[in-house]
């Protein structure tokens, strides 16, 4: 399951945020190493929602310093959906939580 989330995050970073494969590791600092700006955060949140069915609010996102933190935040949200937001995407959620992409 974690590898599933990480795999999707990797895809988002490479396809949508132009991060190169060499830069990807769980300790990579989103801002200092990967050059995330507010546009990258917004794009990332939108893609995480559409691909994983998880809606992170801005506080949750901005509290993530590294890529690993982001992965944990997404995984936590899949396991403990606090709000009914995720219920809008039950099929995507099951699909992505159940198998690696």
């Amino acid at each position, binding site marked *: 399951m974690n590898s599933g989330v990480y795999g999707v995050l990797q895809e988002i970073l490479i396809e949508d945020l132009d991060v190169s494969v060499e830069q990807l590791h769980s300790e990579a600092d989103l801002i200092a190493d990967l*050059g995330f700006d*507010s546009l990258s955060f917004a794009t990332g949140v*939108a893609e995480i929602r559409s691909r994983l069915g998880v809606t992170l609010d801005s506080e949750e996102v901005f509290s993530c310093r590294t890529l690993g933190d982001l992965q944990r935040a997404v995984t936590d949200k899949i396991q403990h959906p606090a709000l009914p937001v995720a219920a809008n995407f039950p099929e995507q959620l099951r699909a992505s939580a159940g198998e690696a992409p």
Partner: protein
Amino acid sequence: MNKFMTALVESSRYGERGLIAGDPDRLTKTTWDEIHQQARRIAGGLHQAGVRHGDAVAVLAGAPRDIAPLVQGIWLAGASVTMLHQPTPRTDLASWLGDTQRALEVIEARAVVVGTPFEATLSAFGGWPIQRLTVEQLFADDAADPVPTADDDVAFLQFTSGSTGAPKAVAITYRNMYDNIRGMEFASRIRLKHDVMISWLPLFHDMGMMGFLIGPMFLGAEVVSVTPMDFLNDPLLWAELVTKYRGTMSAAPNFAYALLAKRLARADDGAYDLSLLRFVLSGAEPIDVAVVEKFLRAGERFGLTPDAIVPAYGMAEATLAVSFLRPGEKFKVDYVDPTSLQILKRASVSRAEDAQRFMRLGRLLPGFEAMILTDRGDIGTYRDVGEIHVRGDSVATRYRTDAGYIDATDEGGWLATGDLGYMTEDAQLVVCGRRKDMLIISGRNIYPVDIERAAARVDGVRAGNIAAVRMPTDGSGEGFAVVLESIASGDASECIRIEREVASRIFQEMGISPRRVEVVGVGRIPKTPSGKLRRLEAQRLICSRTSPVEQPQSA
């Protein structure tokens, strides 16, 4: 009444066209006539609050449905409009308030009007010598008759950036707006019965405000308007709106087309219909030819045609547009010899593999003149590269600063744009670099001093010895790097700490991030004998370490 307001009020009476806005799932239409009636009530409310002819009114609002009647209502009350810099969830409210207060002082605002979703900030303005009003309360007032204004009265005070150090607002007159919107109307061949404009652009920026709110309000054209947040939440909303409302005209900065190209490429066949789009403008940011090509390739599957792409050039000082490609013409790419460009300052056509590609940005709008002034001070002919100067009735002649009004143009009426460029044989303008220090990140104008000020707040950084410089990279738009001096430059772990803290500090304050932070020893940052930063040289310091072939001046 001035000719701009006369035409605006008159066009609101014709037809059922209007502003389609609101929650993206449930957009509703307000006709221009209804907006005019609201505007008259707002003018009444403003008058009651003491706003008089020539006063400045600041607006802090995000919803197009609030902003349209507000802007018109402020004009009907005889005052000028200023859109305030908006706080985001990340913004440090204390520093935002400080900046806002400085901005309000510069324009000597009589009143501030707050709308959705910023109502909560209203109390923060307490204790300031300024009228505090909400959109809601103004809507409820009695209508007032328009206060007469003249063509050369200031209609808009548009801040040129979020520059916190020395806020500077372009003073746009009714004459400027009349000329520019008429020029755009002519050059875009807009037809009110057929054209539908689609926009998600921010209304505190000139492209969104002038092009997609004031423009359609003045002409009485149909416009669908959502917010930048709506677009970033789901970029394909743009394609949905184009499909649903049969959109024909739209505009955005380069970065948005990069984003859309990726999303459209993954969308299902037949999901959207982009075939009615005839005017898709790219402006406010240097245009990357590769991005346009990718966007076209992804859009073609949905009926997007190449001659719909409209490369454009403009700036707040010219009200909005200076040049754009005419409808029905296909965009042209210039292939230029890089050596000739750099050494001879000539944009010689090249067929070699190392040729640099620049987008031609169309012909001047009617009413504009352009002049290329070379480094030697000569007026350039075709393909001579120099600073672009423009002149015409759209060009604002003054800025408003904390020292009052200052001239924006020289005695001949020319505005030095700070952009480097040339003219092609077919009278199209090309921008190939920038003389001014300003950065353009995702369509936002950013001044290096603001980045440097943020970096200076990190421990171990020598204040005054920081340079934020442009750092071009292929494919991912304009970026910047920061070079700074520290006495700890020999200590590797301390350098890493400084680099990280500087990056996150800049992000926190401005929402942008450096591509690179470089810590150097004391005395390494190049300066003039009088101690002024030499950013261009500092830029070479960074660029020489990345790739020797990069063109630091290419836009």
